[in-house]
């Protein structure tokens, strides 16, 4: 790649992908799925159930004897063919709904689940509204210029000069030019 001054961009893209794929292959190789499905389900359940005596910690992470015992129960019930929901209900009956690390999606606590997506959508809507308002408020005065204008050769050369200056490349090609003081007319329609 060093000798070629210009490499077609799709080739470069390929190069980039290859690098990424290598990194990927690394852990695709290491993630041997030698965990039986039942054990995996047990882990997922353990991570969703809280140890009642150590707030905030799941029975999966806690080493409290109670957590160890509860892990045993989970494994046992799974062996007996219980569903995930049944096992969760089993613990909720004994320790109350707070034993689950997620609030239930029913009753008052549905608010916990509803608000985040609502906030997301509202935020995006507000943003869309703001962007429209911000971009429209200039149109009355500059209605004509709001549409894309033809850029002359001269303008292009001037911009190229500025880009080069921004890149820090030697300045002798750039024309003496002051920046337009009125930023809104930066397109140089003059």
């Amino acid at each position, binding site marked *: 790649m060093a000798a070629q001054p210009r490499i077609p961009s799709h080739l470069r893209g390929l190069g980039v*992908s290859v690098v990424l*794929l290598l990194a990927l292959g690394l852990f695709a190789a*290491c993630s041997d799925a030698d965990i039986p499905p039942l054990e995996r389900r047990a882990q997922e359940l353990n991570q969703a159930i809280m140890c009642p005596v150590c707030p*905030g*910690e799941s029975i999966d992470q806690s*080493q409290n004897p109670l957590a160890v015992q509860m892990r045993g129960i989970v494994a046992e019930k799974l062996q007996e063919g219980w569903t995930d929901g049944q096992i969760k209900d089993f613990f909720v009956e004994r320790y109350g709904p707070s034993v689950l690390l997620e609030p239930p999606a029913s009753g008052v606590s549905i608010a916990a689940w509803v608000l*985040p997506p609502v906030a997301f959508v509202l935020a995006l809507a507000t*943003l869309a509204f703001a962007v429209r308002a911000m*971009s429209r408020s200039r149109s009355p005065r500059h209605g004509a210029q709001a549409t894309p204008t033809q850029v002359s050769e001269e303008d292009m050369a001037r911009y190229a000069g500025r880009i080069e200056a921004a*890149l820090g490349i030697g300045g002798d090609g750039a024309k003496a030019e002051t920046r337009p003081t009125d930023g809104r007319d930066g397109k140089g329609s003059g």
Partner: protein
Amino acid sequence: MIDAGQLALAVAFVIAAYAAAGSFLGAVRRVPELAVSARYALYVLPLVLLIAAAALLYAFVAHDFSVRYVAEHSNLAMPRAYTWVAFYAGNAGSLLFLTVVFAFLCVVAVLSIRRKLPHTTPYAVGIMGLVLTFFLGIILFLANPLERLPVVPPDGQGINPLLVHFGMFIHPPVQMTGLVSVAIPFSIAIGAMLARRGGRDEWVELGRVWGMVSWLILTFGLMLGAWWAYTILGWGGYWAWDPVENSALMPWLAMTAFIHSVMVQRRRGMFRMWNMVIIILAFTLAQLGMFINRGGAVPSVHSFAQSTMGWLFLLFMGLTLFGSLAVFVWRMDTLRSRERLDSWFSRESAFLLQNVLFLVVAFVTLWGSIFPLVFEASQGLKVGEVTVTVGKPYFDRVNGPILLVLILLMGIGPLLPWRRATLQNLVRALRVPLLAGLVVGVVVAAVGVRAPMAALALAICAVAAAGILQEWVRGSMSRHRRGESYPVAFGRLLAANRPRYGGYVVHLGILMLAIGAVASSFYSVQRDFVMRPGDVASFGGYTFRYLDVQRISFADRDEDVARFDVSSGGEQLGVMEPKRAFYPAFRIGATRAAIRSTAVEDFYIVPSEFNDDGRAVFRVYVNPLVWWMWVSGPVIFLGTLFALSPQRQPTPAAVRFPAGARTAKA
């Protein structure tokens, strides 16, 4: 010595109050002498506070258990080195720590802004003074670390053993420093607004610098915390979304939004109001974080309601929030933007979207953290009767997708041009990254992933990585065509626009973090093993023989150290020693995992229990790519420093005059 410390605290309180009052009065009444004297008062403050801090240190070293705080957080057996940790192990000490650090930061900040922002400085000093007065008031009247006990106990209670870890020497102080440092850009921004200078973008450069300093310290605090959790808490993970972590994360999210949006003001003179709103939110969240993080040991959102101090903190938080919003509304007319947004498809819009999404994540995190309180209130329950838990599964599910969108945006946003992108621009800028993302996504799916989310997440990471590489490659190539060799071209490219290219380095670090997090949360495997000495087991390509366990007694703890002989694919990897310590005085057990870390994966053994009959239970994890998360720390650090390093000409590229051109004389 203790009395001198007490006196110093009282004097410091008066000085801070004077700095606040004098500075505001001097600025408003236009009495420069008063403002200057207030500024000098601020300069003196750290020295006075050092006396108080020295008194507390002295009490610890001299085992002066007549001081309540010393008796509660140390004992005779505590190693000297842990004096440093004990200093901030409790509520009162951590407040003193915060105050001392903040006072020093204030002095440095004021020295850095004094000449460049002469009008803003008095107001900024006033705000810093107010914050310091509040802290010192709390320390003096509610949580005095130098308070005496009526009866002197023979020995202290000792230090919380969970804090006895190398990570605790740096994580809590860095975290607290990060939180309190948010007040610096806040003071500069609000000060500029008060001085009617918010619309002149002069505050932005220094606001950005201090914003990034603060962001960097917060980032480090969070990463050290994650590292501490990973190595000591022994559950194989690093982030549990508990209230303490969340309270430190929220200001980080807001500051991340701030340091990006402030770039738009710097370059384009836009988002002046928005930047004020963000920094106000960031400081409010930082205060919440300070309250929850202080003391460290038993924090929860419930502690707010349980103490007078909680209410005072809430009150101060409310006052700063509404006070600064009032200033904002009052000064709104000075904050009109110079320019307008041109298009949805522009870098400005991408920045705005990024800001909004970060704030949404912060809001969701806040919502999840306080939801138990909301739930109790709605059910008419008493405080503390928790009937709903909001834990890791909730946050993973709710925040995960938004964070993914943010990573995608991190890849695409910097590739968009300012003002307006045409379809041509978009295609040219995005085709390579999107193609890379597609390829990676398809390949990951083909290799066979369990979770479609994982494939999506990795594809998105690929887009972001390809975007950064494309910028570097294109920039270097265009310079190379001008006759520079590739390494020189690359180096000069980076140096030409430090905020931008430093930012890319930081993005690359964030990407390493993200890939590590995605890989370890989707591909981590674990299993419990019951073993007797001599047993051999294998898991995830590793074979490990349990050799023996030894009990070692220390003054404060008993340790059971297990030894494992580990090999992988016939290659000997040496002996690993996970251990479990028990602290009789606290009745607390703590584990130390043994971790063999490589760039590919971590092999992690942690003991669960040792039975008397010789059987022991170990949990073994294989966590892929976690190493990259810790390595991202230095990358982010260096990238931020590079972005911060001063450059002769900032912002809009000035056009050079040709050699020999004459400049007009004014």
